[in-house]
């Protein structure tokens, strides 16, 4: 076997230019594909992370009717949670949230706003809310933290007074006057234009819903490991008027847009692979055509066609491996760099992203699966294309080959 490998390796380097050209074309496709997949997966992870942290959690525990009819009356007493044992190594943390809607008014301006009653201390760790503070003080006992866009629309600054009017628990009037203690800037445009954060107890008091929460949002170690944990929590919630939902169930639009984008990306990759496939096939074609005489001699002196096929297969493997390795080595430092320094979009590109409700950045994912998937894809293509040289060797006629 060592001689076969030695022979194959030396054969690979017989035509150095051709080997470098083929390996480079494979390397380029792997490089491009890895970068593309990394930015795609990075964007998805970022979108899922943002949505999970600010809205739903990877899993959300609600009163059973809440998701169908998201009103304050479908909230539940947080005391019910204290009776549950939700400790699990897959669960990073959970936070209680009470959410509702109200009219926010300042001076002669009024806007609709989404109210979030949260534990500010826990939320700082869960959604990094404190990091979004761009002005004022995060820790407030009775004031509110306002999204920058909404604050600008209402012409509000830190220290100004905001009036909230809405409907409380079981139809009671909810109205209150609060001091703006901080301004928050969110990566998600929808939040930036309408969110108001209050301490949980403050909102419970405004809505006349003491101890009530709309949801208990849970963050998992792995955002994709939702079904298993959902089943686990469902057993814990058995017999209670509470249900658990995954982020995929709560954010179907996000799932669809990710899927659409993912398959769109694959279409581009397939086009790339087809182009590269022709290049690889050209090399295989030459590999056989140029060496028909030589392969005939090997068969003549006693090397079975099967052994000739093994030798050529090793050559193909080495050539493809070289290209894939080069591509991965080229892509790794760039992915590493952009993984720690996401591309920040500005200008029209940023506006376009925000218009679609996305954070205007291109984050990259660092995941072994990216390299593995691209490497395997190229190997599968090469394996498929290798059918030609294998068949050509099988059908080799010694006398005809010796006349080449």
């Amino acid at each position, binding site marked *: 076997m060592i*001689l076969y490998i*030695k*022979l194959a390796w*030396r*054969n690979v380097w*017989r035509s150095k230019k051709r080997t470098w050209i083929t390996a480079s074309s494979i390397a380029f496709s792997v490089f491009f594909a890895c970068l593309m997949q990394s930015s795609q997966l990075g964007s998805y992870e970022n979108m899922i992370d943002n949505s999970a942290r600010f809205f739903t959690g990877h899993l959300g525990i609600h009163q059973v009717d809440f998701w169908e009819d998201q009103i304050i009356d479908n909230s539940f007493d947080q005391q019910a949670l204290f009776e549950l044992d939700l400790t699990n190594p897959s669960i990073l943390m959970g936070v209680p949230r009470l959410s509702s809607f109200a009219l926010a008014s300042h001076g002669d301006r009024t806007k609709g706003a989404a109210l979030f009653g949260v534990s500010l201390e826990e939320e700082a760790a869960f959604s990094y809310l404190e990091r979004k503070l761009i002005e004022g003080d995060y820790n407030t006992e009775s004031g509110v933290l306002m999204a920058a866009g909404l604050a600008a629309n209402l012409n509000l600054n830190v220290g100004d007074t905001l009036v909230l009017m809405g409907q409380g628990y079981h139809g009671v009037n909810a109205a209150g006057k609060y001091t703006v203690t901080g301004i928050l800037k969110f990566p998600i445009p929808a939040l930036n234009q309408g969110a108001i954060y209050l301490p949980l107890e403050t909102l419970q008091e405004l809505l006349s819903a003491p101890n009530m929460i709309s949801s208990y949002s849970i963050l998992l170690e792995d955002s994709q490991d939702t079904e298993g944990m959902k089943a686990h929590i469902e057993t814990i919630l058995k017999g209670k008027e509470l249900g658990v939902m995954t982020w995929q169930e709560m954010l179907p639009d996000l799932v669809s847009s990710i899927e659409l984008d993912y398959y769109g990306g694959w279409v581009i990759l397939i086009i790339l692979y087809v182009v590269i496939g022709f290049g690889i096939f050209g090399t295989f074609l030459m590999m056989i055509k140029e060496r028909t005489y*030589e392969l005939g*001699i*090997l*068969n*003549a*002196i*006693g*090397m*079975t*066609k*099967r*052994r000739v096929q093994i030798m050529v297969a090793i050559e193909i493997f080495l050539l493809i491996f070289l290209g894939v390795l080069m591509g991965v080595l080229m892509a790794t430092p760039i992915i590493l760099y952009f993984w720690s320094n996401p591309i920040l979009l500005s200008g029209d590109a940023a506006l376009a992203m925000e218009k679609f409700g996305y954070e205007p950045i291109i984050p990259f994912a660092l995941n072994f699966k990216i390299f593995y998937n691209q490497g395997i894809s190229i190997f599968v293509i090469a394996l498929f294309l290798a059918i030609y040289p294998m068949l050509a060797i099988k059908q080799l006629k*010694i*006398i005809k080959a*010796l006349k080449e």
Partner: protein
Amino acid sequence: MKVIELKNLSKIYNPETIPVRAINDVTLSVKEGEFTAIVGPSGCGKTTLLNMIGGLDISSEGSVDIGGVSINEMSESELTAFRLQHIGFVFQAYNLIPVLTAKENIEFIMVLQNIDAKTMQERSDDLLDRMGIRNQRDRRPSELSGGQQQRVAVARALAARPKFVLADEPTANLDSGSTEALLDIMAKLNKEEKITFIFSTHDQRVIDRAKRIIKLVDGEIVSDEQP
């Protein structure tokens, strides 16, 4: 002892359209230790006959027995295995594996035969010595002269310990000095080790050294002499 026995051997090309008899009803036997030259004008069928003896081509009629074994009915893979074990080949264009050194070319056949490393090493060293190319052992074919390459080819053919060696125009690309040196080696191997050689050749220098000369014209044996 007969190593080769051909009975009424024919090779017909285009049998269903315009039949061409490249070999016509050849009956011939070669004994162990012979040094035989198959001669004749270009296109007389020398190479075709050699190819059929070597199991590279199949006959249209007649039979080929090698060491008492009929190769006519063998499958392609059986023939390949048979060639590996029993027949040595030397080609006009040397046909060494260009990416292997002289020594590796010789050992290649033994690797195919699954011979153990120690035996392989001893045998290749011995062959390199006998061919007088020990100093060139680590050179690739492109770094060797034509004569040296053909000596490596002979060593490769002998490495498998074949029943006989088929050499198709082995001196056609060699200068006089290299031809004489190669013939000396082959004649010595024939004389001392009773290795059977069968050549197809035009070369008078080879014909002069042959112990048996078979003349072929239009695919038929017209003379078979032992000068």
